């Protein structure tokens, strides 16, 4: 992965340089006009968060059943990125809602469940930081629980009545020939590449922290 880091960083830089031009030239949505352009960074934020959920879930399961320290490092690193990308989604959403709905926040099922899912991973980080020895296993269980409920957060808009648009919006836009697909796909790819880069950066930090812990133990012995 170290060899791929530089090319991926260049790719991310190119994608993030292209994205604003594509977004600026994308057609206006007929009812929301300019404010709808938050969509091109709002949806990819959640894509980044869901990438993190997948990594955290697989890493946590692997850690709980196989005891792999590497898997635990990936899970903990992904959890931080879940909080980061989720926070971006939770900030960009209300900014969009203020203009489109006339309110910053609505306690409907989609927004509330997304907030609770995000809080679950804030709890994960707190458990790892302040939980003391053995907290890794408890945190792994929290991550698995969070990942297990995440599909319900995604489909909640199709089940309950909510102000938030349904999940069919993204596939409809990707099929749309009117020029909204390209900026969305480029932004999504940019966020996924950024997620991979940040994950590797954070895993490298976790490796060094573990190496330091081992040095402390060796020093005490």
């Amino acid at each position, binding site marked *: 992965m170290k060899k791929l880091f530089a090319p991926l960083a260049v790719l991310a830089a190119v994608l993030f340089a292209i994205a604003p031009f594509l977004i600026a030239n994308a057609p206006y949505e007929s009812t929301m006009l300019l404010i709808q352009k938050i969509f091109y*960074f709002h949806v990819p934020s959640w894509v980044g968060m869901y990438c993190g959920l997948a990594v955290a879930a697989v890493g946590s399961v692997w850690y709980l059943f196989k005891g792999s320290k590497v898997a635990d490092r990936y899970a903990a690193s992904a959890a931080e990125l879940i909080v980061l990308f989720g926070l971006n989604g939770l900030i960009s959403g209300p*900014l969009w809602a203020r203009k489109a709905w006339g309110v910053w926040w609505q306690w409907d099922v989609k927004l509330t469940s997304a907030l609770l899912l995000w809080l679950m991973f804030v709890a994960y980080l707190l458990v790892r930081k302040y939980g003391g020895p053995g907290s890794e296993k408890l945190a792994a269980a929290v991550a698995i629980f969070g990942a297990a409920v995440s599909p319900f957060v995604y489909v909640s808009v199709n089940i309950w009545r909510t102000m938030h648009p349904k999940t069919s919006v993204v596939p409809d836009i990707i099929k749309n020939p009117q020029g909204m697909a390209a900026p969305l796909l480029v932004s999504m790819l940019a966020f996924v590449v*950024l997620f991979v880069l940040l994950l590797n950066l954070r895993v490298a*930090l976790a490796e*060094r922290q573990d190496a330091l812990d081992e040095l*402390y133990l060796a*020093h005490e012995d």
Partner: protein
Amino acid sequence: MLRRFSIAIVSLILLAAPHGALLAQAPAGQSEFVPVNGLPESEKLPAAPLLVVAYAVFLVLMVFYVWTVWRRLKKVEADMHALEQRTAKGGR
């Protein structure tokens, strides 16, 4: 008897009237958020500042996160270096 019956009928009509008016106002078949059309200019919020803030928040968050990782990495490296020096001194 007829008087009581008349009072009951009039009361029922009076009670039902507001509900009828409400039913007449309810939009038919509305199952999701519908934007308001024809809002006066004074009631409209400018979209550009909200859009700029949304994109700026993303940039600030990412830069801040990379900075925190870099800071933590520097601290770990410094601790490691200090520990190695202490170990080397202890070995002598």
